[in-house]
């Protein structure tokens, strides 16, 4: 009796499993897929992309269906994961890590009718757009606060990979720390990971032991925040996500990635049939980069000047890379008042003058 019951309930379930794929093709919902490099609960990079996905769902309601796959390794497995989404009838796929660049292009070639959006990359094609945020604008504000608040004049920086995006962030933070505090010194640790709590905690602890009383991070976990809290007397900034549970100290502010509006706009474009391949690079002004609340641990005058800097960047009145600036080797880069062009910034592979140490290669 029981067995037959089990079997009769199993049969429609199998049929359902089969039908799932076929119905995906026939429906009129727009299907949007997301490929994540970390777990959705990383509290940083992937967490914010997933928040963007949920904003898409909230905005369009029944008109969209979203799917995602988390912790997808960059390489052969990524190509299969992306292909699978395209096969399952996704109309638009966001691949949210630099390492998905080649797999995204390769799959896009096989599915000309599916639209692809690759985050932080530089290669586009007819159905592949790239998008990224001008995080360096947020870094300028971090550098300003860090330079103003450091007592040891040593600022620790946990960097991930030596790619232009990360190098840009270091330069921008350094320039603005130096502006308010000429004695400031940067110590950079390369973690070679986007997300590895243990490694990030080690890096933070090592930097604190070397005298750093400010930790900036370009990795996604909250481990550096916890390490700074434990050490005491150290301030940090939330990365990718607000990390407000560490406010008001050690976390005094943050850079928040805000992908929702972009994801909604691109989904709308697919629905309207107006999607075209673009290269988007938005910052504070467009709302893609958010500055988390500056906590009360920051002196009022520093907070006011930081907010003024934010307003100036948002309005386009001030560009974080404005001359006079020299490269690390002392050669001239930007003349007085000259503003860096996007091409140079996109491929930035050098430190500005004053930063010690080498970019690994």
């Amino acid at each position, binding site marked *: 009796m029981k067995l037959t019951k089990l079997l009769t309930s199993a049969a429609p379930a199998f049929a359902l*499993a089969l039908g799932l794929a076929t119905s995906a093709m026939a429906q009129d919902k727009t299907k949007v897929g997301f490929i994540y490099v970390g777990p959705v609960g990383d509290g940083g990079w992937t967490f914010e992309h997933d928040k963007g996905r949920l904003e898409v769902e909230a905005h369009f309601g029944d008109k969209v269906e979203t799917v995602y796959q988390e912790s997808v390794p960059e390489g052969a497995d990524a190509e299969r994961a992306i292909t699978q989404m395209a096969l*399952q009838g996704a109309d638009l796929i966001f691949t949210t890590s630099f390492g998905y660049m080649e797999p995204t292009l390769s799959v896009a070639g096989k599915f000309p009718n599916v639209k692809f959006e690759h985050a932080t990359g530089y290669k586009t094609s007819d159905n592949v757009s790239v998008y990224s945020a001008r995080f360096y604008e947020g870094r300028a504000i971090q550098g300003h606060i860090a330079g103003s608040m450091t007592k040891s004049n040593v600022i620790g920086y946990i960097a991930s990979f030596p790619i232009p995006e990360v190098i840009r962030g270091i330069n921008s933070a350094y320039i603005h720390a130096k502006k308010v505090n000429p004695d400031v010194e940067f110590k950079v640790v390369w973690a070679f990971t986007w997300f590895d709590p243990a490694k990030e905690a080690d890096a933070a602890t090592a930097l604190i032991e070397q005298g750093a009383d400010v930790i900036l991070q370009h990795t996604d976990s909250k481990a550096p925040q916890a390490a700074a809290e434990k050490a005491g007397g150290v301030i940090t900034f939330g990365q990718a996500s607000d990390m407000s549970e560490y406010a008001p100290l050690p976390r005094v502010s943050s850079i928040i990635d805000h992908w929702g509006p972009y994801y909604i706009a691109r989904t709308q474009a697919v629905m309207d049939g107006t999607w075209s391949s673009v290269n988007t690079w938005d910052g504070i002004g467009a709302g893609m980069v958010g500055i988390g609340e500056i906590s009360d641990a920051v002196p009022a005058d520093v907070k006011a000047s930081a907010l003024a800097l934010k307003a100036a960047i948002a309005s386009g009145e001030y560009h974080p890379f404005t001359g006079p600036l020299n490269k690390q080797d002392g050669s001239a880069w930007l003349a007085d008042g000259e503003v860096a062009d996007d091409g140079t910034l996109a491929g930035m592979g050098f430190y500005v003058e004053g930063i010690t140490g080498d970019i690994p290669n």
Partner: protein
Amino acid sequence: MLTLEKRPQPSKFWTYMTPLVAVIVTMIAGGMLFAALGKNPFTAIGTIFWEPLFGEFSFYYRPQLLVKGGPLILIAIGLSLGFRAGIWNIGAEGQYIIGAICGAAVGLAFYPAESWIIFPLMVIAGALGGLLWAMIPALLKVRFGTNEILVSLMLVYVAEQLLASMSLGLLKNPEGFGFPGSRNFQQYASGHNAELITGSGMHWGVVAAFIAVIFAYILLNRHILGFHIRLTGQAPRAARFAGVNPKLLVVFCLGASGALAGLAGLFEVSGPSGQISIDFNSGYGFTAIIVAFLGRLHPVGILLAGLLMALTYIGGEIAQSNLGLPAAAIQVFQGMLLFFLLAIDMLTNYRIKLTNRRVA
């Protein structure tokens, strides 16, 4: 009261039944796990096992089973030789990495020259790399009696550090915008381990895996060396009387498994993966241990077990994106498979007996 009684002879029936029962029990326990996560267990299990084979898009997934299963089978075949003789190479992951590095280095050294000879040279370098890496635990064991389990496992972490250093330094793509990782072999015809028939998933690594299955079968069943391996595992003392040289056997078993793991690494780096990168290794060397045991250390069994494991990977990915199952749940599901296999394996050597409590 239930007690366990040792069987005079391992049960033939249970030797073959264990993997099947383990798979079924895993399905049941996994189904309960998925139900606890709020998913329909029948849909979830159905998606994992049915969709890749007979679903609408099986034309894409079936070849992927070969791509994913090939390296698992190749490595597991090598491991099974040692495991049969009681020689435990746990460090196939490290040999896999070193094989990939050596093979890729040879290929990249020729870049951008094009010649048919480049790929065969890479294959040889890959096998040699894995072989030499496995020789470290082998020679240390033979010479100093060290434990090959510990040495081979620790060498995995050394290999991972080497891999990171290679992707950042010596083998880094000079045109890669500073991002770690080597040139992509998919864009270098002479070094590319391409699909032999487009869309079939068959690349040289899969061919090598099938050849390895055949050779291992012949070796174990028809060759004196295979007899020595089996004998050493079953009765070490008898083996010595039969004239088996245990040291030579250690060197052979570790060497063979290292070379096969190195080959798997080379075929992966020059094919599906395409490049040396910091996280190039994705655990094939460790998963192959499960595959070897799931396949009862028998070549044909390993072939089937490798394909089954690949099925859970690919089906698991489909379940993730279709049903929103978390990645961790799929990993737990795969872990259960080995767990239940080992638990049920007890029935091969023991039988469950109902006894009267009062009988002392």
